């Protein structure tokens, strides 16, 4: 019987690309034959399960129910990784463990943060937001006042312009998705549209930019085109239903869906309308990117279409041949994800992944691809397309345009360059070990 099922799966018309990639519609059909076929395939190679008995926790009353719940003690390893745990006088990064979570939004406790001079301890009752400059009437808003305004909620990813910087290394850095890509997260943000407040201050026709500034000790400021401010910018007050986390900008931040993380100014206290960009330290220096030959990009702004596989990936181990779900996240600062293709043979052949609904603009789209690993070598890749017509560049294309380091990157916490959105490739060997490769 098991042999017959195994034969059925081998012959089923579900392979869509080389090295075991199966048709994504396996999920959608939900047919008994497919389910039987896939489980049958596993049954054919797995010893029978042990008899079942009650465990101790099933025979006693459980623990007290806490006011603020935290994950199971068995999940203590699921944490952010820190670049500056002693709070030295420099930037602190906390990276999201993509390979240890799933779904399409990031829990607040695991949302990435970057703070350039620590996290300010802001009393929300004393915090003020002022909007001034090229306006009819400068106005000051308290948090209580903003609470009473019409609000909107939306999903949006935020990605640091320097996320994936180790991918500029001329040789692949052996590190998890957390170390390589941990400076992107996705959440539901709730707040007041900036356009709503600008309607009340009025806008002088000479205004072309807004300059947003935080209440942190650096008074971090970034210039944003007025067109973006009027399009989908939000004064965000809530993150996944809770007040913003302190490291994410409590009590309010500027949210610029799809745009460079640093521009989403945290601890927002001032918005000035101007006729020119401020040319701040962070826009004129830090978030400008050196190109091969020595020119540099200024005002990159958009975090362009990108995807990476989180499962399986470096740091996880394959548990024997058979069925797996390849999955990961795709997102674009230009709009909605329209397609994700997955390869298991280093880009020789590709199959289209299933996209988890709802597929939202400028938010994570989880993609899934059924895979039957035959136990041999494989190289897994994903590649995403968006509705602005952009596609994630292949590595050769990307390196030709943006360059790579002369020497291998040895410190994955460093930032050799920014705005990497090419592919990530995971090589699986016959022992089930996963390595980061360029393919």
């Amino acid at each position: 019987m098991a042999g017959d099922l195994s034969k059925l799966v081998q012959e089923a018309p579900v392979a869509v690309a080389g090295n075991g990639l199966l048709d994504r519609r396996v999920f959608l059909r939900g047919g008994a034959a497919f389910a039987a076929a896939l489980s049958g395939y596993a049954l054919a190679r797995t010893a029978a399960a042990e008899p079942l008995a009650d465990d101790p926790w099933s025979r006693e009353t459980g623990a007290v129910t806490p006011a603020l719940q935290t994950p199971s003690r068995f999940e203590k390893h699921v944490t952010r990784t820190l670049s500056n745990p002693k709070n030295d006088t420099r930037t602190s990064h906390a990276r999201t463990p993509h390979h240890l979570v799933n779904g399409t939004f990031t829990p607040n406790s695991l949302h990435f943060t970057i703070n350039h001079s620590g996290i300010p301890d802001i009393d929300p009752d004393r915090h003020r937001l002022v909007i001034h400059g090229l306006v009819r009437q400068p106005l000051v808003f308290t948090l209580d006042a903003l609470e009473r305004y019409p609000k909107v909620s939306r999903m949006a990813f935020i990605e640091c312009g320097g996320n994936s910087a180790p991918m500029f290394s001329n040789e692949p850095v052996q590190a998890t998705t957390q170390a390589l890509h941990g400076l992107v997260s996705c959440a539901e943000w709730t707040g007041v549209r900036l356009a709503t407040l600008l309607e009340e201050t009025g806008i002088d026709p000479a205004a072309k930019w807004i300059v947003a500034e935080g209440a942190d000790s650096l008074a971090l400021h970034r210039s944003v085109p007025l067109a973006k401010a009027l399009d989908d910018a939000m004064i965000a007050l809530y993150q996944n239903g809770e007040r913003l986390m302190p490291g994410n900008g409590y009590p309010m931040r500027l949210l610029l869906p799809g745009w460079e993380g640093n521009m989403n100014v945290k601890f927002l206290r001032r918005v000035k309308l101007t006729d020119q960009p401020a040319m701040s330290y962070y826009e004129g220096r830090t978030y400008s990117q050196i190109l091969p030959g020595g020119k540099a990009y200024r005002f990159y702004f958009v975090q362009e279409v990108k995807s990476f596989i989180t499962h399986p990936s470096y740091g996880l181990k394959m548990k024997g041949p058979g069925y797996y779900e390849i999955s990961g996240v795709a997102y674009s600062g230009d709009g909605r994800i329209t397609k994700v293709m997955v390869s298991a043979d280093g880009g020789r052949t590709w199959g289209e992944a299933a996209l988890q609904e709802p597929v939202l603009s400028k938010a994570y789209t989880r993609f899934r691809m059924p895979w039957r690993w035959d136990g041999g070598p494989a190289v897994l890749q994903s590649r995403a397309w968006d509705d602005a017509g952009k596609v994630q560049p292949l590595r050769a294309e990307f390196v030709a345009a943006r360059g790579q380091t002369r020497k291998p990157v040895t410190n994955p916490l460093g930032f050799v360059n920014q705005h990497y959105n090419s592919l990530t490739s995971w090589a699986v060997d016959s022992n089930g070990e996963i390595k980061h490769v360029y393919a």
Partner: protein
Amino acid sequence: MFTPERLVIFAAALALGACAVMAPAPTGPKPGLGKPISEADIAAWDINAAPDGTGLPPGRGTPAQGAKIYVEKCVVCHGEKGTGKPFARLVGGDPVSSGIETPKTIANFWGYPTMIFDFTRRAMPFQAPRTLTDDEVYALTAYILALNKLIGENDEMNAQTLPRVRMPNRDNFIVRFPELTPSLPRIPQ
């Protein structure tokens, strides 16, 4: 100036002009819960200094004056004469053409001298930001520019002279906005 009604029309025009799906323009009652404030009462926070000199305050300073303040307040982090360590170096730097990972310095990368004034005024010293007087910030800016031989040893920096200092890398930038930001709707002129 835009009246509220015109702003709504203007936002609607924006929406029509954009290919991307956008949230509807804000409409309906205006809560009016912001409190009016004068620019004079915002002055303590309004510390932007732009490349054309907009926002630079009155005041002045020379490299020699800056050298004294530097030894007192900056050398611990930035090293003797701006040579760096433990934190950023303020003098010299490899040409940016030597690789995409070249550390960016004032001399090899920063496009405008006002960036030095603005960042020093708002963020330095790191543990005591916004404690320097405007004269001290002009003096430190002059000192750093002179260390990099971008001004003379005796050149005074003030709101008129500072914006005229030409930074070596000024014209080496490719501005991606708006031409390379196609998903952003344009404001109709």
